[in-house]
């Protein structure tokens, strides 16, 4: 399985508790793939996961905080797109 890593392996590599990853999943922040008895992290989750590890272990932000940040960032991205669109419209009248 080239694009999957087990939670156990990932936790060892990053020296973090597997419970942190499980809590992220329980909160619906990330999802894991179940293959037999083992839970795996897919490649498309890796960048987000690394970001959440920064938030938690470097910036001392808890799971609830990460979830709130995630929602706010989604809104920021939508608002960025809207601002770009409004700027283009405004530009038509300049």
């Amino acid at each position, binding site marked *: 399985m080239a694009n999957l890593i087990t939670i156990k392996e990932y936790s060892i590599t990053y020296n973090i508790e597997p419970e942190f990853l499980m809590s992220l999943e329980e909160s619906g922040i990330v999802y894991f793939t179940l293959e037999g008895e083992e839970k795996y992290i897919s490649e498309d989750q*890796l960048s987000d996961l690394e970001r959440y590890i920064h938030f938690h*272990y470097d910036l001392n932000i808890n799971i609830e905080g990460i979830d709130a940040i995630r929602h706010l960032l989604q809104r920021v991205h939508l608002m960025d797109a809207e601002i770009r669109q409004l700027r283009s419209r405004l530009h*038509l009248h300049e």
Partner: protein
Amino acid sequence: MAFIDYYKVLGLEKAASQDDIKKAYRKLARKYHPDLNPNDKEANHKFQEINEAHEALSDPEKRKKYDEYGENWRQADQFEEARKNQGTGNNGGNPFAGGGGGFSEADFGGGDFSDFFESLFGNAGGRSSGRRSPKYKGQDFQAELQITLQEAYTTHKRTITVNGKNLRITIPAGIANGQVIKLKGQGSPGANGGPAGDLFLTFNITEDPVFKRLNDDLYVNKDIDLYTAVLGGETTVDTLSGKVKLKIAAGTQNGTKVRLKGKGFPVYKKEGEFGNFFVTFNIKIPTNLSPAQQALFEQLANS
């Protein structure tokens, strides 16, 4: 290259404890971390400063060296040399050793430190603790590419250099301003069998002096003379695909907008599909009339 007051950057006194440094760093990093401030270059720059200050002050060896030589960093090497020669070096070992051994280049976040930092601690001064070094998937890269509206109109290839590596990319026609393209695996290499990071390329399309774009539509203003507007006629308009002849109906009002279907911008990744092209007429009122013209207008006005 100027001296950087790392204590000031973190808002601390020189007597700050390691715990104070950690707390101050975390508080500021939560405010300026790039992941929490997307597309904010100022915050990104501020975070680098905070990260660098933390890097220098959280490592006791580096902090000692900074406290001792910080403001006189230019003379640091000479001082040390003289001290060694006099046999009065401290017992704790050479503070200029850097102590960064064992960390790969990827740990440094790709040149995130100032010249001042590198001059004092060397460019292998230690690991970057602000952003955890990737231990599995390689670091993602962000880059920006500026292209003109004309370039965005056609699918074309371009070679870009990202972190010293040349990449040949295809830019599809119709790419939007601010659009981000992900180039999978073009970030830094992975570790421990992990995949390489990705490259996120943001396109900035420069504004064109003639054509204005909104989504897939293009807008232009076209001057026409009063006589053509009143009596009707023809004019030629430049589009991005060449010149187009346009009929002007008699009695065309100033600000009239006409639509040329399918003459606008190509629709991204939909070959053969194009937006619309809008032409707004700007009727030029004649000025500097000759006495004869003046008389004719007066005749019209009184008719």
